[in-house]
């Protein structure tokens, strides 16, 4: 399908929003206003953007430790995200979750999660629900190349294949798990060989090219809605920051690798393309950017102005009524 002008601008806008959101947050993190484990999605924005563009509110997603991008793309409120990351009462999880555990069930964002691979079984459940409801809704699960090493990956592929679950596997293959390269940690030269073994349709795309991701996801989601079973979309990409912001371990990845990937910045690349196509102008971009910066700053201010939870609030939400 050809993308409309509006669609293209929307994609760019989402990517830029994720980028600006994280940049703002990092300033605060390095200034000491935010603590805990914060994993950056910068460099990988095209994936969440291109995939989630096809999902409705009723479609459910499960994310991983690097989850800000998925939240934003699914339509989460940046104010409540930021407040959560700051540990404030007004955050999505009332300050109980932090960066690694943001969820918004009301928009089908079933949560970021800190255990590698653990979103996969949960997502099979979300897709069973979609299947049972029979309304053509789907589930999507985002996970890294590292998650493919855990047995949970295998079990989820098997179940999805067997039960023809409407589940979109989105592997964000950034080539590394912390400081271990995929070559050192995964025996199948291409990850997609594994879903292929389970007869799961798959495709590998440049995860830094938002239109490629968009187009591949479009076909995949259409298949899923028709009930044709799961789809596996591998998106090759790269993480720009350390594994998590305050990681004490040095980043051992080759410097030139990072430099090369930075040249393939998904946001910049799309900006250049849309400028060339005349869909955007420098002025328009500046306006978009300003608007995003305002929204991000608003979120930041909202978080800063929000109260911390009371100590005793820790005693709430252990159980649901």
């Amino acid at each position, binding site marked *: 399908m050809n993308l409309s002008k509006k669609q293209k601008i929307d994609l760019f806008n989402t990517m830029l929003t994720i980028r600006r959101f994280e940049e703002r947050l990092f300033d605060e993190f390095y200034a000491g206003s935010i603590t805990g484990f914060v994993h950056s999605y910068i460099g990988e924005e095209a994936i969440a953007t291109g995939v989630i563009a096809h999902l409705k509110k009723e479609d*459910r997603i*499960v994310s991983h430790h690097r989850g800000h991008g998925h939240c934003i793309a699914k339509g989460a409120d940046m104010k409540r995200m930021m407040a959560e990351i700051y540990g404030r009462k007004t*955050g*999505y*999880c*009332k*300050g*109980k*979750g932090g960066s690694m*555990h943001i*969820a*918004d*069930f*009301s928009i089908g964002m*079933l*949560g970021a*999660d800190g*255990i590698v691979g*653990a979103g*996969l*079984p*949960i*997502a*099979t*459940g*979300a*897709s*069973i*629900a*979609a299947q*049972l409801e029979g309304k053509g809704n789907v*589930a999507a699960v985002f996970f890294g190349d590292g998650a493919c090493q855990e*047995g*949970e990956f295998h*079990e*989820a592929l*098997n*179940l999805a294949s*067997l*039960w023809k679950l409407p589940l979109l596997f989105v592997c964000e293959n950034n080539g590394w798990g912390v400081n271990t390269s995929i070559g050192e940690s995964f025996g199948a030269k291409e990850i997609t060989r594994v879903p292929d073994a389970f007869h799961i349709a798959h495709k590998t795309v440049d995860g830094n090219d938002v239109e490629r991701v968009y187009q591949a996801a479009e076909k995949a989601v259409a298949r899923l809605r028709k009930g044709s079973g799961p789809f596996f979309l591998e998106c090759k990409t790269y993480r720009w920051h350390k594994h998590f912001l305050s990681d004490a371990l040095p980043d051992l990845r080759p410097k030139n690798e990072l430099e090369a990937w930075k040249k393939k910045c998904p946001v910049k690349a799309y900006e250049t393309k849309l400028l060339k196509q005349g869909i955007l102008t420098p002025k328009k971009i500046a306006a978009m950017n300003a608007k995003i910066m305002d929204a991000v700053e608003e979120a930041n201010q909202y978080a800063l102005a929000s109260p911390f939870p009371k100590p005793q609030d820790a005693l*709430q*939400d*252990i*159980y*649901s*009524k």
Partner: protein
Amino acid sequence: MREITYDQAALEAIQEEFRRDPRTVHMATDLPPELRQEFGSDRIRVTPIAENNFVGASIGLAGSGFRTVANIRMATFGFVALDQMMNHAAKITYMFGGQAKFPILYRMTVGGGFQGAAEHSISPYSMYMNVPGLKILLPTTPYDVKGLLKTALRDNNPVVSFEHFLLGGTIGEVPEKEYFIPFGKADIKRKGTDVTVVALAKMVHEALAVAEELAGKGISLEVIDPRTLIPFDKQTVIRSVKKTGRLVVVDEACQTCGAAAEIIAFTTSDKSAFGKLKSAPVRVCGMDIPIPFSPPMEKFALPDKKKIIRAVMNVLGD
């Protein structure tokens, strides 16, 4: 009143609730034929042998508005699934700030005494008790299992029911009429005045047998079955201990860091109960060894009536 088996009573609880609520799903590696027949293959699913997956899938289903019963079978298979159980099921309500409900019933069998050897004979409920966020059941009779599972199937949280392997075939009275047993309400299975005996799982029956036997000798035991471990009805135990001044806790699970340790700890930490204790409390637990296969050793490793009697005599000062 009609008498049915423990397993039958559990099945009835599920059948009744599955009839009431179509958004319920059953998952297990084996097929429960009665359920499949009545509710069909969409809702009654046979899973691959991948416990961690279906324990996790239950969470995804719950977060999507479905209630799942996931039968893990033996508790030893549950170890394969502890990532989803401990890191997720137990914590997901809390860490997401209570924005969603996770109604799930996990079932698994515990216990030894059937020459299952080390792997297949285990009662790991205290491990689950140490990770907040789960509710934990320990039904010991057909009546209790039905009433507790019924309540579990209306609860909006992950509930884990530990059912002793050897209780499945036992028979007891179960009303035809619908009933529910609230969580956090211990059952005083026998009233008594001399010694408080808190017994868990199958040991409730051994304790009751001992109580009967000792009654003949003029010793009166109060046998308490907590029925739910989380929440735990501490007050009933404390009240009883304040009355009797003596406490014996009987549990088949390994002694160290078992539920029995917790029962003694919360009782002795209670100032009023502590003040009334006439003698040191005693545990009668499974030994701190893996369960051996061979019957003489297995019998030695597990609590029995003789050991309970010895403990009772001990707290009575004999």
